[in-house]
């Protein structure tokens, strides 16, 4: 999740920027209220009633995976790493494909589950669960801070609106409609946001092709920066594999994707993740290739991460800049709302209910979720306010942590013999080795090393002392049923 540099590249009048932000903010909040007006029950609020269909399911997976990075960093990568930069980015879709069978199995094994933490606790026990929670919450907070900061910085770069105002707007709007409508508001707005992102990317790409022409773009790059068209650029190929594993790790462990697996109607999860992967894959290429038009346009790019909006504005003028702002706002909102919803239920289920208040009823969990969404918004604002580059950079090395969860999760779901020792050592040693390689070698190997060490631990421990896990143990009593199971005044 990249954070763009601050450069004086405001290409829109601030007043126009405010109008666009106000218009879309009002729309999201109104829709959030409308869709959430009947979400009084816990499952309706945090899992959209567990009946989400294929269309909304596919769109929410797609929109959530399109972060501000897909629209802003894909052109930057095309400018820095050429063809493989774009293709490497589009391989982020492999994580979605690979999660498809997991989503189906999660829904079948845990029809009443709430979080990825539930699975790790029931499958591997408390030690693995707490290690996993540390990794997952660290990653979620890093992603939230990174998105909040990206919002402030991008809105400032595009419109000149001060960082703190932009960051406050994006955070408060996402908190507002997620709070009002829960996961239904998130999924509903994700559908519209997906359409907006796609429309913006297509219009800019078509106009770039019709104004300049693909042959001219290719010829100009070949003349000025031929390395970008080189299919054997080693750094780019390394980036490609690391990005792939980082994406797989992010998706496999994060409750953002697990909560969708729980929320989708029976039979929808597999299809939604496969279709979302197919439809997401071309977006970084369509959004990214316009950066290759810079030589043909004779454009001087002061900061690589602003190349997308600069090319759009050069080709389309104000219309192009408006389109980019709408795309960026939609991309940021669709990721931030999902993170707020998924992290809040992770905290409520795995910390509040399992650590602090074991007898919490469904109604109490529903109320706690709303408070946590608000609290997460405030905490993110406090962390984003001083613009801490160090904190934002933390997300770069979460690659090591999240990649170390791939094997414990996948093996735990499908391999009866996978054991606790393998999962715990896999996550701890994988994270440590990945982190070491991050500093010793570079960011592009952290996820690769983390996943490899974790895989070795899981396989070796399982072969040495195979477990005999009963998958039926993953089914738990639903909080709404707890009351009826309690004795008079007793605990569950």
């Amino acid at each position, binding site marked *: 999740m990249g954070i763009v540099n601050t450069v004086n590249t405001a290409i829109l009048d601030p007043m126009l920027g405010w109008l666009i932000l106000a218009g879309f903010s009002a729309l999201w909040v109104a829709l959030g209220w409308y869709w959430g007006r009947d979400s009084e029950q816990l499952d309706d609020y945090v899992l*959209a*009633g567990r*009946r*989400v*269909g*294929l*269309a*909304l399911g*596919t*769109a929410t997976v*797609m929109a959530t995976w399109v972060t501000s990075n897909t629209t802003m960093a894909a052109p930057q990568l095309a400018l820095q790493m050429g*063809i493989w930069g774009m293709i490497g980015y*589009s391989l982020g879709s492999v994580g979605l494909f690979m999660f498809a069978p997991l989503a189906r199995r999660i829904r079948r094994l845990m029809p009443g589950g709430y979080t990825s933490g539930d699975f790790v606790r029931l499958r591997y026990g408390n030690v693995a669960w707490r290690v996993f929670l540390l990794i997952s919450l660290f990653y979620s907070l890093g992603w939230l801070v990174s998105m909040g900061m990206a919002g402030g910085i991008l809105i400032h770069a595009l419109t000149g609106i001060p960082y703190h105002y932009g960051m406050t707007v994006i955070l408060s709007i996402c908190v507002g409609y997620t709070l009002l409508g829960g996961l*239904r508001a998130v*999924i509903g707005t994700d*559908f519209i946001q*997906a*359409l907006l992102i*796609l*429309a913006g*990317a*297509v219009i800019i*790409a*078509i106009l770039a*092709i019709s104004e300049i022409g*693909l*042959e001219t773009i*290719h*010829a100009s790059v*070949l003349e000025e920066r*031929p390395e970008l*068209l*080189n*299919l*054997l650029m080693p750094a780019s190929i390394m980036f490609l594999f690391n990005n792939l594993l980082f994406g797989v790790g992010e998706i496999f462990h994060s409750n953002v994707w697990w909560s969708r697996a729980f929320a989708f*109607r029976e039979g929808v999860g597999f299809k939604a993740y496969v*279709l979302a992967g*197919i*439809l997401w*894959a*071309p*977006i970084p*290429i*369509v959004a990214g*290739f316009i950066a290759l038009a810079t030589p043909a346009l004779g454009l001087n790019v002061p900061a690589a991460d602003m190349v997308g909006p600069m090319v759009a504005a050069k080709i389309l003028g104000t219309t192009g800049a408006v389109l980019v702002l709408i795309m960026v706002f939609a991309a940021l909102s669709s990721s931030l709302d999902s993170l707020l919803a998924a992290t809040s239920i992770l905290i409520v289920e795995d910390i509040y209910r399992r650590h602090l208040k074991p007898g919490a009823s469904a109604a109490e969990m529903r109320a706690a979720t709303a408070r946590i969404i608000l609290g997460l918004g405030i905490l993110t604002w406090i962390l984003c306010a001083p613009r801490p580059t160090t904190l934002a950079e933390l997300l770069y090395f979460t690659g090591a942590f999240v990649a170390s969860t791939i094997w414990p999760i996948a093996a735990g779901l499908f391999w009866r013999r996978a054991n606790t020792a393998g999962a715990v050592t896999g996550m701890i040693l994988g994270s440590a080795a990945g982190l070491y390689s991050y500093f010793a070698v570079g960011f592009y190997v952290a996820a690769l090393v983390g996943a490899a060490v974790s895989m070795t631990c899981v396989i070796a421990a399982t072969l040495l002392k195979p477990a005999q896990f009963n998958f039926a143990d993953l089914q738990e009593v639903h909080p709404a049923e707890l009351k009826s199971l309690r004795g008079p005044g007793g605990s569950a």
Partner: protein
Amino acid sequence: MIISTTAFAWLIGIALVLTIATPIILLALLLRDWRKEELW
């Protein structure tokens, strides 16, 4: 090994066609789910 103009055009062309088709696919699925009362 430099990518040829034709391969480059094919790569961008296929990606663009798929991206154009995506909203149509999503809206068609939405209509289908709505008719079957399986939106959410």
